[in-house]
Structures are given as structure tokens and as C-alpha cells.
């Protein structure tokens, strides 16, 4: 049946392809956006405990903790160890004069806790000396656009000169700013605006401790918020969700689903209506209703599977292309998303086609005698 009408068949396949691509593409961006919301939290793999000011809602907009908090956190039972982590947002100037807002993370120099778990170039030890730091891949591309990667390189922050000694595998941040990791001593020299020395206190629970109880204990004693990594991630996601950005993506995804199903169902119904006579002929010649429905459904499934395959392929290609951009690095098309979008589209379309096929199967086959 479909073979007789290439144009409609192509139109339907294109509609499915477009719709699947749009949904998957938006889902992939949304998924990576969700990952970015907690990227710098998840990057700190060696410290499951996070303590912060009660006003802090996410990593990016964190208020520094009061001095003296570190000792008080350390002295709580259930806390195995705790170290400060200082985060500063400031301006950096590259040697070519380019100005750029950057996020500087000062980690405890004794333990080096708070660094991303992997370095692409150089080692954690490379940032121990005063005045050195490591940059993330996206940050390098922003500070030195189009330039080949080589170290050491020099940048300036305020009137301090910093030497970049390596590249971390820090996850793409929500802000899009370069992420510089250095020792806390180095970071403190850049912290002209504030006189606080830590933004977060990060640490670990003693083995077997009840995490919730320890966190409550810390809050009661210090007035600070304490939570484990997933709790902080949860809070950050909730905060960003309330900012409304994800909603925009959900709207686009819904539009993709609607247009895809609407175009496919509409074209299909036109198509089936044009072939009513042929289907009636089949009925007259003794093909059963169930078989007619199956035939029509088969054609629908054919269109759907080709469209889904093309759409998914296209989405996978663009995601892969995007993943090689420094800023969108780490963007992936999760297989569940690929499967889910196809399933959603298929379910709605198949439902529509079944209704149509049933109507066809129930028509009066005697129409074949009318010209």
C-alpha cells in the first residue's frame, strides 16, 4: 500500500524523524543541563559530606561559611574528617588581553580534597606551588580561543599572575565559566572582595554513621546546613528547576511529540482514506477485519521504525558533534531517553492508526461496487 505513494510515505517518515530528533535532542540537552546543575558537586568524589551556609541553594550561588565553622564541624561525632573548599568568582585576563569571568576553586593543600578525580593533562601535584592552577577543557578554550593546548601558560587575576600547569577533567559547569582549581592559599590571594576563607566545608562520615543524624547534629551545633552529596545535588536541581529553564525544554519536547504524532497520524489517515477502496476490495475478497487492521498497523510500524531509526541516528550524531564542543562536553543521548521518546511517539501514533484501521475495517465493503 505504502509503496504506491512514495511522497506520503516519505512525508510520514520525515515527520517521525523530525519529531524524534527534536525530542531526543532537547532531552539530551536537558539531561546534560541537569547534570551541569550538580557538575561541580558530583566532581568532588572523595568528600560525601557538604556543609554550607543555610542560605546556599546551589553550588554556583554559595555564600561563604563563617570562620571557625571548620573546627566546629570537625569536632562533631560522626564526622571522620573535614576540609575547607573556597570558591571565588572573579575576572581573569589572558596573555592576549581577553577578559573572562572565572570560577576559582581553592582546595585544601594538605589533602587536595575537592579536585576532580581525573586530570587530562598534568597532575594534582602540579597546583601545589603558590600561584599555580589547573583549568578545565572548556575554560582553556574560552581563555585561549583557537589556540593549541600547551602548558604552562600564564593568566592574570586582579593583579596576581597565575601559571596554568595542567588541565582537569572537570565536568561542564552550569555557568559556562572556566573552572580553575588551585590551592586554597593561592585562592585566598585572589579573594580581595571577601575576607572569608571557605565557601563549603567538605568531608566524610565515619564508617557506619547514620548520615542524617550526623547532618542534623552538625546543623544543631553550627547553624550551618549539612547534607550528603546527593542531598546537595537534589537541592541544587530543585533550585534550578524553580528558575524555569527546564520548563522551556519540556515545552519544546512536548511540541516535538505533538507535531510528530499529529503529522504522522494526519498523513496516515489521509492515506488510509485514499486507499479505502482497495481495503474494501480486500474485505470483499474475504480478508478478515483483523487482517486489515494488522495490515494497516504493519505499514504504520514500518514508517515509525524507519523514522525512529533516522531520528535517533540524527540525534546521536548531533549529540556526538556537540559533545566535542568544550562547553557542551559530556552531553550524551542516554539510551533510556532514545527508547523513551520513540516509545512515546510510537504509542500515540499506533493508537491513532489503530482507531483509523478499525474504522476502515468496519466500513461497508459494498462500496467497491460504486465508482
Amino acid at each position: 500500500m505504502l509503496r504506491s505513494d512514495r511522497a506520503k510515505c516519505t512525508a510520514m517518515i520525515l515527520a517521525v524523524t523530525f519529531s524524534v530528533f527534536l525530542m531526543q535532542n532537547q532531552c539530551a540537552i536537558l539531561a546534560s543541563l541537569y547534570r551541569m546543575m550538580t557538575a561541580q558537586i558530583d566532581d568532588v568524589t572523595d568528600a560525601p559530606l557538604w556543609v554550607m551556609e543555610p542560605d546556599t541553594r546551589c553550588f554556583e550561588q554559595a555564600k561563604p561559611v563563617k570562620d571557625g565553622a571548620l573546627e566546629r564541624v570537625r569536632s562533631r561525632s560522626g564526622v571522620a574528617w573535614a576540609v575547607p573548599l573556597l570558591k571565588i568568582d572573579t575576572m581573569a585576563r589572558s596573555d592576549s588581553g581577553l577578559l573572562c569571568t572565572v570560577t576559582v576553586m581553592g582546595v585544601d593543600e594538605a589533602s587536595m580534597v575537592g579536585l576532580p578525580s581525573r586530570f587530562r593533562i598534568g597532575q594534582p601535584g602540579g597546583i601545589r606551588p603558590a600561584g599555580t592552577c589547573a583549568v578545565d577543557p572548556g575554560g582553556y578554550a574560552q581563555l585561549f580561543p583557537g589556540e593549541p593546548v600547551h602548558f604552562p601558560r600564564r593568566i592574570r587575576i586582579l593583579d596576581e599572575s597565575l601559571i596554568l600547569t595542567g588541565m582537569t577533567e572537570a565536568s561542564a559547569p552550569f555557568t559556562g565559566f572556566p573552572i580553575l582549581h588551585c590551592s586554597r592559599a593561592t585562592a585566598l590571594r585572589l579573594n580581595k572582595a571577601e575576607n572569608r576563607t571557605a565557601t563549603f566545608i567538605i568531608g566524610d562520615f565515619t564508617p557506619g554513621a547514620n548520615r542524617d543524624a550526623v547532618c542534623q547534629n552538625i546543623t544543631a551545633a553550627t547553624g550551618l546546613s549539612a547534607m550528603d552529596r546527593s542531598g546537595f545535588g537534589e537541592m541544587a536541581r530543585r533550585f534550578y528547576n524553580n528558575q524555569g529553564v527546564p520548563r522551556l525544554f519540556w515545552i519544546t519536547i512536548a511540541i516535538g511529540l505533538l507535531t510528530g504524532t499529529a503529522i504522522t497520524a494526519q498523513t496516515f489517515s489521509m492515506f488510509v482514506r485514499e486507499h479505502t477502496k482497495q481495503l474494501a476490495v480486500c474485505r470483499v475478497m474475504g480478508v478478515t477485519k483483523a487482517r486489515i487492521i494488522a495490515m494497516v498497523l504493519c505499514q504504520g510500524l514500518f514508517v515509525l521504525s524507519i523514522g525512529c531509526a533516522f531520528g535517533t541516528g540524527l540525534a546521536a550524531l548531533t549529540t556526538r558533534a556537540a559533545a566535542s564542543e568544550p562547553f557542551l562536553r559530556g552531553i550524551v543521548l542516554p539510551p533510556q531517553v532514545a527508547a523513551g521518546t520513540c516509545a512515546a511517539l510510537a504509542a500515540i501514533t499506533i493508537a491513532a492508526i489503530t482507531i483509523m484501521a478499525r474504522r476502515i475495517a468496519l466500513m461497508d465493503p459494498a462500496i467497491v461496487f460504486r465508482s
Partner: protein
Amino acid sequence: MNTPAVHCQQIHRHFGDGDTRVHVLRGIDFTAASGQITFLAGPSGCGKTTLISVIAGLLQPSSGSISLFGRDLASMPPDDAVRLRRKDIGFVFQQYHLIPALSVAENVAVPLLAASMKRRDALDQASTILDQLGLGDRLHQPPARLSGGQQQRVALARALVHQPRLVICDEPTAALDHETGHRVMELLAASAVHPDRAVLVVSHDNRIFHFADAIAHMDDGIITSIDHPNSSAAA
């Protein structure tokens, strides 16, 4: 005399209700014998198509009874009616109604495939009959490439491929010129007539009436007379 292929008694059929109600069949008594070509003739709108739709079980009569090969249609479960149509009836339509997406051979194989025959066997059987009808060289072409007469021959092959006991043709020659129509009728007469097969042809083309063993004249929903042209010629 053995059981007639088609036997209708007091068939009534109306469409619509109230003001728009039309009484199309007004008490049809009609018999088509096996081994014969029976024509159904009459002016346009007199109800010929409606009658054959009822006979084929595609339309329910409002009242009256029809039996095909001695089996009463009304008392038959719907599935059996579909099976009967699939197995025992072949159709030829005025507009051919071939499926454009299928090749000539596939079109002819449709009734066999509907009866769940294996595709290869069905296509083999289809090409055999197409050979007999002089279309052996067109098996793999789409029907749109053929002329009207050739398409009607394909339709004829499709109507005969499963060796049905009743072949129903609605205006088989109306879309064809005289010569081509004649050719199709010759083929129909040669290949369809069989001692236990009945052929029912609806036509108001009197140029082909001489193919008929019996002609039932219909007007305004009733059978007005029945001719037996060949036997009367012999008498």
C-alpha cells in the same frame, strides 16, 4: 435438477429512514444455476448492484432469504460468511479495482493469500492462470502499465484463481470499448463456465447478451422477466 448456486426468495432491501427512505429491492425471486452464465440486466438505478451485494453477503437484506449452494446466508455466522466469500466467490468489478502497489501476479494472488496460502504457491498459481488469459508476460508489472482490457483480464484472473463456485461480475465491460469488452467476455465464457460453477454478470450492455444462458430483466426493484436466449434460439 441439482441445487442452484444462488437462490433468492422475496428479497427486500431499503436504505435510509423516514423521508429519505428508498425501497430499492422490492421482492426479488431469483435463481442462478450452476454451469451457466446468468445475466442481470436493467436500467440504471434499478437495484442490480444492490442485489449482487446482498447475494455476496456484503449487504444484509431487509427481509427475504438467500441461499448459496444450498446454504442459507442469514443463518450463517459472520465468520463463515467471510470464509464462504473467500473460498467460493470471485469478483470482477467495473473499475477493475486492482491494487496499484502490487504487481499483476500479486494482485491475482490476493484471494489465495487471503486464504493463507503460502506466498510462493499463490504466485505460482496466479501465473498459471495469467498464462491462460494471455498475460504471462506481464506478471511483474504494476497494473497501471496495462491497458483497460488487460487490467480487466487481470481482474478476471483474480476472480478465478481460487476456483470459486460463483463468479460475480458487476458491469465487467462497461469501462471497455466494444471489441475489448467482447474479448473479455469470451475469456470469461471460456474459462469461468464449469459444470458446478455459476457466473453472474450484471450488465446493461446488450451487445454482450448473447453470452448469456439466462437473462434476468430487472426494473425498479423486481425481476420482470427471465429469458433463455440460447434455448429459445434452439426452439
